[in-house]
C-alpha cells in the first residue's frame, strides 16, 4: 500500500506542477468566460441605439401602418425604431429617384436603413431592407412583422373590414417553454441544452486528455527504461494502479476546478452578463447539484474504464508513432458517444437512447447528457453504473496482464495473436 501511495503521489505532484496543467486549468474557464462575454458586450452596445429608418412605400398607403407597428422598445426604454420619414411615390421614375436619395443618406450616415415596400407586396413580393451594417439584421424580424401586419390590414380593408388600430390587433402573444423539475418550474430558454452540451464537452475533453495522459505516462516509463528499475521494487499491478489513481487525481482536480468555476459562472455569471448586456433579461442557468455530482461519478467511472485501456495500449508500443495508432480505437469510441448528442437531445427517453446510454463505453457522456436533459429513472442510472463497474473490473484485469508483459517488451508492436499469448504469461 505504501508503494502504491508513493507512485500515486509522484504521478500527481509531477503533473500538477507542470506549467501546462496550471495554464489549461486556469486559462480554460477564463477563456470560456471571455468568449461568452465578448460578443454580448459588443452586440449589447450596438443594440442600445435607436435605429433611424425611412420607409419607401411604392405600394402606397402602407407606410403609416408599418410605422405604427414598429413599437418595440429597447431595454433602456428608448424606442427601437425611429421612422424619420415615409415616402410614397406615384410611379417607377420617382421610385428610382427616391431610392437614390435614400441610399445616399444611408451612406452618409444620416439614416441607418431604409425599407422598400414594393408595389406588388400584397401579391407576395418581398419588401427589402437596405442597410449599411449587417448588425441591423436582428431588426428584420420586427420589420417583417410590421410589414406583414400592414399587408393583412390592407387585405382586410379591401374586403370591407376596417381596422382602427392595427398595432393592438396584431400584438403577438409569446409562448415560453417552462421545464418542470423537482426544484420547481424553470423558464426554458435553451439553457438545458447548453448545460447538457457543456457537461458532455467537459467529460469528453477530460476522458480524452487523461486517457492519453495515462498512455503517455506508461510509454515514457517504458522508453526511458525506468520501468525496469520500478518493477524490481514493486509489482507491475501496483505501478499500473498507482499510475491510474495518480492521473485520475490530477483529472479530478482539474474537473472539480472546471465544474465549480463553470457552475459559478453559470449561476452568478448571468449577473455579470446582465451588467454588460443592456438587453437585460439574462438567461439564468441553473446547474442542479445532482447533475454535478452524477457527472463527477460518471467521469471517475469512465476514466478508469478508458485509462486502463489507454495504459495497456501504452504498454504495447515503444514509440510515439505506434502510440498514435493504438490509441485510435479508444479515442473513436469517445468521439462516437459524442456524435449521438443530437439524437439523445431530441429523444432522451427513447428505447435507443436508453440502450445506447447503458453501453458502458458510452455511459459517461450519454448518461450525463440524459441527466442534464431529463432525469432518467433511477434504475437506469444504477444499471449503467453497475455495468460500467463490471466492465471496468474486467478491463483493468486484462489491461494489467498486457501491461505487465508489455512494459518489458521492446520492438515490434504485438499482433492480436501475440497479445492473447501475453494474457497467458505468468
Amino acid at each position: 500500500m505504501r508503494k502504491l501511495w508513493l507512485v500515486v503521489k509522484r504521478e500527481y505532484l509531477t503533473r500538477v506542477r507542470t506549467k501546462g496543467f496550471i495554464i489549461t486549468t486556469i486559462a480554460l474557464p477564463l477563456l470560456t468566460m471571455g468568449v461568452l462575454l465578448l460578443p454580448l458586450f459588443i452586440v449589447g452596445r450596438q443594440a442600445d441605439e435607436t435605429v433611424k429608418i425611412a420607409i419607401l412605400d411604392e405600394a402606397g398607403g402602407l407606410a403609416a401602418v408599418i410605422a405604427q407597428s414598429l413599437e418595440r422598445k429597447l431595454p433602456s426604454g428608448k424606442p427601437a425604431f425611429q421612422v424619420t420619414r415615409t415616402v410614397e411615390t406615384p410611379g417607377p421614375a420617382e421610385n428610382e429617384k427616391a431610392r437614390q436619395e435614400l441610399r445616399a443618406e444611408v451612406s452618409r450616415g444620416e439614416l441607418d436603413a431604409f425599407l422598400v415596400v414594393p408595389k406588388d407586396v400584397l401579391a407576395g413580393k418581398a419588401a427589402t431592407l437596405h442597410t449599411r451594417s449587417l448588425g441591423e439584421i436582428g431588426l428584420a424580424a420586427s420589420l417583417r412583422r410590421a410589414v406583414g401586419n400592414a399587408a393583412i390590414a390592407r387585405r382586410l380593408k379591401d374586403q370591407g373590414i376596417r381596422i382602427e388600430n392595427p398595432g393592438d390587433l396584431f400584438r403577438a402573444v409569446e409562448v415560453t417553454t417552462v421545464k418542470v423539475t423537482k426544484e420547481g418550474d424553470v423558464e426554458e430558454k435553451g439553457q438545458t441544452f447548453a448545460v447538457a452540451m457543456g457537461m458532455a464537452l467537459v467529460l469528453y475533453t477530460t476522458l480524452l486528455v487523461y486517457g492519453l495522459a495515462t498512455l503517455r505516462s506508461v510509454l515514457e516509463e517504458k522508453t526511458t527504461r525506468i520501468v525496469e528499475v520500478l518493477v524490481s521494487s514493486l509489482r507491475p499491478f501496483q505501478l499500473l494502479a498507482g499510475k491510474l489513481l495518480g492521473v485520475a487525481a490530477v483529472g479530478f482536480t482539474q474537473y472539480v476546478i472546471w465544474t465549480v468555476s463553470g457552475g459559478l459562472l453559470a449561476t452568478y455569471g448571468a449577473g455579470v452578463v446582465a451588467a454588460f448586456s443592456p438587453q437585460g433579461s439574462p438567461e439564468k442557468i441553473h446547474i442542479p447539484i445532482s447533475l454535478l455530482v452524477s457527472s463527477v461519478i460518471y467521469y471517475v467511472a469512465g476514466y478508469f474504464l478508458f485509462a486502463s485501456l489507454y495504459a495497456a495500449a501504452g504498454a504495447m508500443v515503444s514509440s510515439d508513432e505506434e502510440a498514435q495508432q493504438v490509441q485510435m480505437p479508444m479515442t473513436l469510441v469517445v468521439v462516437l458517444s459524442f456524435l449521438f448528442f443530437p439524437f439523445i437531445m431530441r429523444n432522451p427517453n427513447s428505447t435507443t437512447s436508453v440502450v445506447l446510454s447503458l453501453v458502458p463505453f458510452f455511459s459517461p457522456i450519454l448518461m450525463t447528457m440524459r441527466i442534464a436533459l431529463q432525469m432518467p429513472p433511477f434504475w437506469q442510472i444504477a444499471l449503467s453504473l453497475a455495468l460500467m463497474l463490471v466492465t471496468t473490473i474486467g478491463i483493468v484485469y486484462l489491461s494489467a496482464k498486457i501491461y505487465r508483459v508489455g512494459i518489458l517488451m521492446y520492438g515490434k508492436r504485438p499482433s492480436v495473436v501475440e497479445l492473447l499469448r501475453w494474457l497467458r504469461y505468468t
Partner: protein
Amino acid sequence: MLENALTFPAVDVRTALPARKPGWLHDQGIGTHMDAVVLEKVTKRFDSLTAVDGLSLSIRPGAVFGLLGPNGAGKTTTLRMIMRVLVPDEGSILVLGQPASDRTQDLIGYLPEERGLYPRMKVREVLVFLAALKGLSERESTRRVGQWLERLVLAAWAEKKIIDLSKGMQQKAQFIAAIIHTPPLLILDEPFTGLDPVNAALVKDIMLELRDQGSTIILSTHRMEQVEVMCDSICLINKGRSILAGDLRSIKQSYGKNTLRIEYSGQGDFLEQPALVESVNRFGAAVEVKLRPGADPQEILRAAVSQGARISRFELIEPPLNDIFIEKVSEVHA
C-alpha cells in the same frame, strides 16, 4: 586479454557508507552462512523460446559473482526471475534464504543495462522516490541521497533535471538508486559502461566496500577483463543453460598454463609453427599464443631468438577468461 586493460586509478574516497553493526544481515533475517541466491532447475519459456532451461546455480554470500554469457543467453531473464519481475515456469529460486517474493525485492538493488530515470524530474527527487520505493522512510531516503550525491560528486547537480545531466552523471545517479538502501544483494548489469576511469574507480570502490560489509554482488557484463579483476566466482550460460560454473581461480587453473604472452619487436614469423601453436591473438604490441597440448614453449623462444625477434616479455600464463568464454561458447555452437 591483457591484464591491465582495465585500470582503476587510486582515488581518494571518503567512506560514506552508513556504518553497519556486525550482524546487520542477521538482523534482517538473513543468515550469512547460506547461499545468497540459489536457483534450482529453473526454466522459463516465452512461447516457443526457452529463455532459461533447467538452470541451477548458487551464489556464495559476500562475494562478487559474474553472470556471463553471449547476447540472448538468458542472463536478463535469469536476473528478472531473481528480482521477482518474472516467475519461473519450473524450478525454485531462493533469495537470501527465502523464496523470491515482494519482500525479497526490497533486499535487492538493481542497476539495469539500459539506464533510465524520469528525464524531467530533479536528480534528488528521483532518487528519494526510488529509495522510498525500496522501503526507506522519506526522511532516511533524503538523508542518504544527500550523502551519496556528495560521495559521487553529484551534489552540485542535485536540483537539476535528469535530462540536463551528462550520460556519465546519469549513470552515477542510477548507481546511487541501486545501492541507496544498502541491499544485501546487488545486481549490476554493465555498471562501468560510459564511465571515465575516475568515476569507474569510484563505483568499483563502493562495490567492494559493500561486498566487504557482507553484500553479495551479481555482476553481469561482457567485459571479461572486469570479471577477471573483480569476480570471485562465475557462471557462464548459453542458450539458457549453465556451461561453466565455479570459482574463477579454479576454473582458470583447470585449463593449466597453456598460453604464452609475448611482447617483441621485429619479424613475427617464429609464430608460424602449426605443430606447436594452436592460435594467436594479436594486440599490436603484444601477442597471446595458445599452445597445442604438450608443446614446449622453449622451442618457440628458440625460434624467436634465432629469427632475430627482440623479446621484451615472454610469460607462460593461464588462459584469459576471454579465450575460455569464446572456446566454451563456440563448443556449444559447434
